[in-house]
């Protein structure tokens, strides 16, 4: 089984790289910490020194949020691209981020307290995706092309409304706050937000794990998958629910972070093949690496203020996507 040995090797390599990225993410910041001090603080959580406080109260929750956001978006992209058999599908396609963005924009204009944002974003992302799935319903199941059309339509409607809210907001600072949320940021969240997001993401991952065999059968074609005993309707609903939970969990703590869910699944398929038993687990560390490193750049590149991580990932993600889509040679 040489193919599986290679895939397994790549999966382990991704996990090792993620480990390094995590230590870097914790060590580098406004106060630079030695990697050995980071490891010491991580293994001695009850110390009272500055390093332990920085690591446990600030940096660790932040890198773990980056892991969650990256892993959830990449897994969601892998699921949706597998189900729709279309490499251009992005987890935000189902409208989750657009719904969350509009809700947060309205919440900011109405002066809702910031601690509510994560919960509001989660509820709005989930609600919008359920709405899109309801629009795409066809008989007992959901029709793939209708998911894409409904998602695009709802996303552009909400996108337009969000722009309107920004333009008509009573204060410039509110508009800037909305734009900052749209640009994506992992700042301002602690263990509480992480805990809730992790709970919903865990539910999403569990559902995703359950549809892996069915998604593998879909790789042979929908008609064949049915003939092999796959309940395609149930599979599509489960993929949509899993993907909505993952996207909502990510959006609730990061705002709009694009391109991870689109590009990382392509990278993962290059490394571990499109067999979902490998692609789905591998997408989690791969997405996490992308967001942990992007967040590191976002908070250290400029000494005065953080760069929006969503914007940064778009700037890095678009060339990566163009390369994968147009310049790469066919996989061996």
């Amino acid at each position, binding site marked *: 089984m040489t*193919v599986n040995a290679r895939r397994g090797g790549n999966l382990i390599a991704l996990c090792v790289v993620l480990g390094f990225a995590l230590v870097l993410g914790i060590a580098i910041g406004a106060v630079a910490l030695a990697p050995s001090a980071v490891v010491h603080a991580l293994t001695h959580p009850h110390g009272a020194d500055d390093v332990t406080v920085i690591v446990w109260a600030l940096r660790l929750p932040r890198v773990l949020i980056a892991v969650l956001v990256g892993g959830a978006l990449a897994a969601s992209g892998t699921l949706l691209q597998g189900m729709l*058999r279309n490499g251009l599908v992005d987890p935000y396609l189902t409208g989750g981020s657009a719904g969350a963005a509009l809700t947060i924009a309205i919440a900011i204009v109405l002066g809702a307290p910031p601690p509510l944002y994560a919960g509001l974003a989660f509820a709005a992302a989930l609600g919008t995706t359920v709405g899109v799935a309801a629009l795409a319903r066809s008989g007992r199941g959901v029709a793939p092309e209708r998911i894409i059309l409904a998602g695009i339509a709802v996303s552009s409607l909400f996108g337009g409304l969000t722009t309107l809210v920004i333009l008509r907001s009573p204060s410039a600072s509110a508009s800037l706050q909305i734009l900052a949320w749209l640009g994506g940021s992992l700042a301002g969240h602690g263990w509480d937000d992480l805990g809730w997001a992790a709970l919903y993401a865990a539910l999403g991952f569990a559902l995703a*794990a*359950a*549809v*892996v*065999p*069915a998604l*593998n*059968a879909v*790789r*042979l*074609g*929908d*008609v*064949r998958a*049915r*003939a*092999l*005993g*796959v*309940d395609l309707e149930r599979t599509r609903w489960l993929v949509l629910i899993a993907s909505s939970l993952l996207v909502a969990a990510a959006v609730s703590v990061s705002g709009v972070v694009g391109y991870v869910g689109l590009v990382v699944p392509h990278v993962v*398929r290059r490394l571990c*093949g*499109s*067999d979902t*038993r490998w692609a789905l687990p591998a997408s989690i560390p791969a997405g996490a690496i992308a967001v942990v490193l992007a967040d590191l750049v976002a908070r250290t590149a400029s000494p005065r203020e953080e760069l929006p991580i969503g914007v940064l990932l778009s700037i890095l993600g678009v060339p990566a996507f163009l390369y994968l889509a147009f310049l790469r040679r*066919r*996989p061996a």
Partner: protein
Amino acid sequence: MIEARDLRLGYGRSTVLREVGLTLRAGELVAIVGPNGSGKSTLLRALAGALAPQAGEVAIDGTSVGALGHAERARRVAMVAAEERVDDDVVVREAVALGRLAHRPWWHWSGGPDDEAIVEAALARVDLSALADRAVATLSSGERQRVWIATALAQQAPTLLLDEPTSHLDLAGAYATLDVLHDLAADGAAIAVVLHDLNLAVATVDRVVLIGEGTILADGPVEQVFRSELLTRAYGAEIAVRQTTDGAMVAIPVRRAHGAR
């Protein structure tokens, strides 16, 4: 055994076939023939439970096919559908292993050692063991067709339905495929195969179902169905049936002078 009674089949409001009755027994290899668009694939899909009939019923071993769950149905009927796009990097062994999907709980990622043995046996049966690690997309049409037959074999369903499995094959490949089906029927499988080529059907099967004029025009042994007037009626073009010197039957379209009707 599959039994179809008084079927009316179609899509939406249009009806393709009506008053269809058909029984497929263990050990039988049956060819379904008829002109393009006559409803051969539609009938096969209905027998497989993939298309709900507008009227009538399909029963597998006495149970209505509509009442069976997806996995239960796949354990009883395997279907080899017409060509469909396969992801680039699906490997032959992996595709055939998916035939075992209906034999384990739907959330289980992989099969056990028993499943692996069944997959290897299915590969060997269609002579694919040497190609087991190749990507399906890199195989010839004939080899790909064997992959789907092996996948259906791994399903271990007593009934096998195939939709034009020989359509892209050369003569030798087509006969080889039918040979495999013959052996399977001899082992007790009930097999229905849609064939485009009348002469391939007459040379390889014992029973033919002829579809035309929106229903089953004839169903029986080759000699009974392969009659000029029946084929002419089904295909809407004059077809003669001749016997070769060694007794084999062939259907040949009768050439007309240009402009004659």
